[in-house]
């Protein structure tokens, strides 16, 4: 499988489950760029997010495990109550340090560390949410060459998160969920 050494990181908070499922469902067969999903939820949630997402895609969806190599064709969900970081050797690591933006997992933590490793091979996506998570790290990732897609606030269940991101991003593409999927399909 050819993923061109790319990585996709998708961050979402309230109102983002539906768009996440839609995007995964619209990826074309054979899509193999690895995806990390950071979705805010309660600390006590189990791994059902991965199961829910799995119902919409043929890609393999699983909770990220520590020191796990990032592999093409996989969708990794940030486990409840853990931050997910990306190591130089393209493996994942977990961290239970302080919440960031009141969140663990935090989108900022994953975007930042993924951008340091993947640079212009990284695409970050910011979806619906009532939180500023993903905005500053999105801007940082942008500086390092990453492409940023933001769900059109007019179409987001909760527009605050896309709006906060757009306030600090310089070159973000504002797209509907369907267009985000089209964009990703063309990346490969």
């Amino acid at each position: 499988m050819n993923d061109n050494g790319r990585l996709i990181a998708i961050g979402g908070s309230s109102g983002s489950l539906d768009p996440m499922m839609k995007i995964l469902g619209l990826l074309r067969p054979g899509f193999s760029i690895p995806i990390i999903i950071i979705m805010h939820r309660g600390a006590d949630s189990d791994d059902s997010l991965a199961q829910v997402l799995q119902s919409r895609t043929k890609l393999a969806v699983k909770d990220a495990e520590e020191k796990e190599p990032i592999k093409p064709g996989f969708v990794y969900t940030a486990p409840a109550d853990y931050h997910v970081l990306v190591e130089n050797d393209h493996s994942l690591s977990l961290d239970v340090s302080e919440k960031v933006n009141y969140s663990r997992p935090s989108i900022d933590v994953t975007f930042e560390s993924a951008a340091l490793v993947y640079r212009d091979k990284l695409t970050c996506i910011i979806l619906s949410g009532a939180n500023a998570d993903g905005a500053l790290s999105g801007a940082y990732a942008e500086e390092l060459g990453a492409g940023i897609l933001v769900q059109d606030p007019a179409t987001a269940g909760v527009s605050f998160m896309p709006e906060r991101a757009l306030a600090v991003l310089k070159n973000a593409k504002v797209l509907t969920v369907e267009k985000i999927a089209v964009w990703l399909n063309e990346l490969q």
Partner: protein
Amino acid sequence: MTGNFRLEQAELEELLNLLVEKYGYDFTLYSRASLYRRIMSAAVRGKFSDFASLKLRLATDPAYFYSFVEEVTVNVTEMFRDPQFYKALREKIIPILATYPLIRIWHAGCSTGEEVYSMAILLKEAGLLHKSILYATDLNQSVIESARSGIFNIGSMQRNSENYIASGGKADFSTYYRANYNLVKFDESLSARMVFSMHNLVSDASFNEFQLIMCRNVLIYFEKPLQSKVLELFDKSMDTLGFLALGSKESLKFSTIAPLYSAVDVKEKIWRRKK
């Protein structure tokens, strides 16, 4: 990360080497992504404008070095964290520990002590605290002092109490501490059975044998070779048929000691040493 400088990879390695040479604290086998992020946060908080000034301060100011280590290592914890894990301890492990004349438990990487106090409460409720010794170690002196004091913020007590109940606790959690303004102090009958000391898992040796070693959410910060080394240290410190408990995302899988242990509770990450 805004405004401040960004540490280059080579500078990070230079800094880590300095800490080994000057202070004997070896972070070179810590997972880089988390370590980098925490060092950058410490640098931002310390208002350093470039790498040279951070390095100079660390090289010349031991007091700053120790506070830096505390910032860089993760000290986030809560009582009865992952209540189901404590439930498993209550139901599966404590009844076996009860058969020993003296119960020795090691909390490796005890941070501010929440887990040690949780364990003491479990033992007390099982009527075993009087014959138990809880050894609690960490590489940060200041968190050990904090743990030893038994003093915690009152703000975290609601969450702790909820966890306690979810773990199967039947008492009124507030009977274990006395509140004073915004602080609480845990009962001294709990801390009387605790021994606190500094211990660095990277460089210090085994110091006793234990029936239970708890090291939760510490190994995730280490690279694989260091994880193996620390697991071997635990194995050396393990009593015959002793138990090892790791964090919910940690595993013995693929480690050199894995064949020596059988799983007691796969989900709650509890293993037992084979004969």
